[in-house]
C-alpha cells in the first residue's frame, strides 16, 4: 500500500485542476476577510507548476515536491506563496530520495510541512489560518498509522479532519494574516487558506484512494 511517483504527479495535476475550478470560490472567500486574491494566486502558482512539473524520469518524489515548492515561491507571492511553498519543500525534504511512500511516511511529511508553516507564519491553531486545517489532518494521519488503517482509510480520515478544521475556522476571530485587521468582523467567514488546504488533502485522498 504505497503512493508512487506517478501518483504524486497525478495528485499535483488534479489539485491544479481543483484550484482552477475553485479559483472564483477561493477569491470570493478571500474578498470577505482578505484581499480577494487567494484563488488567483493559487491558480497562477499551480499553472506555473504544471509547466515546470518533471515528467517523472530522473527524479524522485522529494525532488518533485521541492520543484513544486520552488515554483510556488517564485510565482505566488502574498502570504499563500511562502506558506504553500513551505508545505511542499518540507514534505519533499521528508520524503527525499524515495520513489514511493506509505501512510506513516505521509504522516511524517505532513507533520514536517505543518511545522514549517508554523515556524514561518507563527500562527497557532485557532488563529483562523491554514494551520487549522493542517493540524487536525496531521493528527488524523498519525492516529490512522497507529491504528494500522489502510492508506486509503487514513487519507480519508485526514481529509475529513482537514474539512472539520476548515469549517471550524468560520466562527473564529482571526489573529494572523490579513483577516486579523478585521478583528471581530472576521468571525462568520471561512478562512480561504484553510479551504485550499482542505482541497489539497481531499484531492490526495481521492487520487490516492486506490493506491496499492
Amino acid at each position, binding site marked *: 500500500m504505497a503512493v508512487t511517483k506517478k501518483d504524486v504527479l497525478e495528485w499535483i495535476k488534479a489539485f491544479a485542476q481543483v484550484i482552477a475550478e475553485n479559483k472564483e470560490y477561493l477569491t470570493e472567500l478571500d474578498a470577505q476577510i482578505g*484581499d480577494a*486574491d487567494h484563488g488567483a*494566486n493559487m491558480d497562477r502558482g499551480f499553472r506555473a507548476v504544471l509547466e515546470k512539473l518533471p515528467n517523472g524520469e530522473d527524479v524522485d518524489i522529494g525532488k518533485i515536491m521541492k520543484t513544486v515548492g520552488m515554483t510556488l515561491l517564485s510565482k505566488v507571492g502574498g*502570504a499563500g506563496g511562502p*506558506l504553500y511553498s513551505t508545505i511542499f519543500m518540507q514534505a519533499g525534504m521528508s520524503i527525499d530520495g524515495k520513489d514511493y511512500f506509505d501512510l506513516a511516511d505521509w504522516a511524517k511529511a505532513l507533520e514536517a510541512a505543518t511545522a514549517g508553516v508554523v515556524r514561518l*507564519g507563527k500562527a497557532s491553531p485557532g488563529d483562523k489560518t491554514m494551520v487549522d486545517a493542517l493540524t487536525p489532518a496531521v493528527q488524523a494521519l498519525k492516529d490512522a498509522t497507529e491504528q494500522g488503517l489502510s492508506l486509503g482509510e487514513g487519507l480519508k480520515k485526514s481529509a475529513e479532519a482537514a474539512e472539520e478544521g476548515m469549517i471550524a475556522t468560520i466562527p473564529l476571530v482571526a489573529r494572523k494574516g490579513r483577516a486579523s*485587521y*478585521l*478583528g471581530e468582523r472576521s468571525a462568520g467567514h471561512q478562512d480561504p487558506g484553510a479551504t485550499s488546504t482542505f482541497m489539497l488533502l481531499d484531492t490526495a485522498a481521492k487520487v490516492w484512494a486506490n493506491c496499492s
Partner: protein
Amino acid sequence: MKKLINNPENVVLEELKGIELAHPDLVKVHYDPDFIVRADAPVKGKVALVSGGGSGHEPMHGGFVGMGMLDAACPGAVFTSPTPDQMLEATKAVDGGAGVLHIVKNYTGDVMNFEMAADLAKAEGIDVEAVVVDDDVAVKDSTWTAGRRGVGLTVLMEKLVGAAAEEGRSLKEVADLARKINGQGRSMGMALTSCVVPHVGKPTFDLPEDEMEIGIGIHGEPGRTRMKVEPADAVTEMLLNPVIEDLPFESGDEVLLFVNSMGGTPLIELYIVYRKAVEMLEAKGIKVVRNLIGPYITSLEMAGASITMLKMDDDLIKLWDAPVKTAGMRWGV
C-alpha cells in the same frame, strides 16, 4: 468592470512596459523576475533602498525609484506581495557595497517574502537590513496578531530615508532613521467606493450609495466601521483624531501632513480635507511644517482618502527638502 486594461493577467507586465518606455532617464526595468532599478544602479558606496509590494498602489513603489529615493522596487501581482526571487535579484542589482535596506510594509505576505529574500541575499554575502512599516491606526496593535498595516507613512519613509542614503549615511544609520520614522508617524484611511481587482472583475466589497467605510486598508480590506456618508469635515475628524491620539501628537509638535487620494478621489476634494485638517491641528497647537497632497499610495480606482502625520525635526525637514528625482515625486533637481 470599467478599466483601461487589456487582459487582466497582463496588467502588471503592460504597466512595467509603459514605465520602461516613459522613464528611461530615471529607471531600468527588469523582467522575470520583475523589478525596477534606478538607471544608474548600483550606486557605488551608497546604501541601497529596496521596497516592493503588490501592484495597484501606483505611483508607489515603482514611481519612487530614482535619485534621492528608492534604488529598486519589486512589483507583485495586483495587491499581492512580490516573491523572494524578485527581491533577491533587485537586492543584488542595486548593492553598491554599502549594504541594502529593505523597506517592508507590515503584511504577512510581504514580511515573509522579504524575510526569505534577506536570508538568501545574506547567504550571498550582501549586508541586508529590513525595516517594517506599520503606521495604520485603524488596526489594533498586538503581539498576538499580525499587527498594524503599513500604509501612507511608507511614502514619506522612502523619501526621507532615500535622502539620508544619498547623503552617504551608513546602513545602520539609515535603518535606525527608518525605525525612528516608523515610531513617529501614523495614518488612517477611508473609502467611498470599493476598488475592483482586475482578475476578480467586481468590487471587492459592496458599499451602498449612501455609506462609507472608515479605517480601510489599501487593498480594499474592510475597515473599522461602516456608516452613512458624512461631510468632508466630519470625515477628516474621524481620520485625524485617531491619528493624533495614537502617538499622541501634542501641542508644540511640528509635523508633516500628508493627505492622500486612494485613487478615485480627485485633488479638489483633497484640498478640502487638507483645509479642515490644518484647522484642527492649529486649534491643538500642532504646526504643519511640510505637506504632501495627492495620489501617492493608491488602491486602484478606489475613491477615498487617507491622512498621515509624521512628527518632524530639523534633520527630517532637511531630508524632506533634499532633491528627489523620480517619476512620482520630484523637486530640487
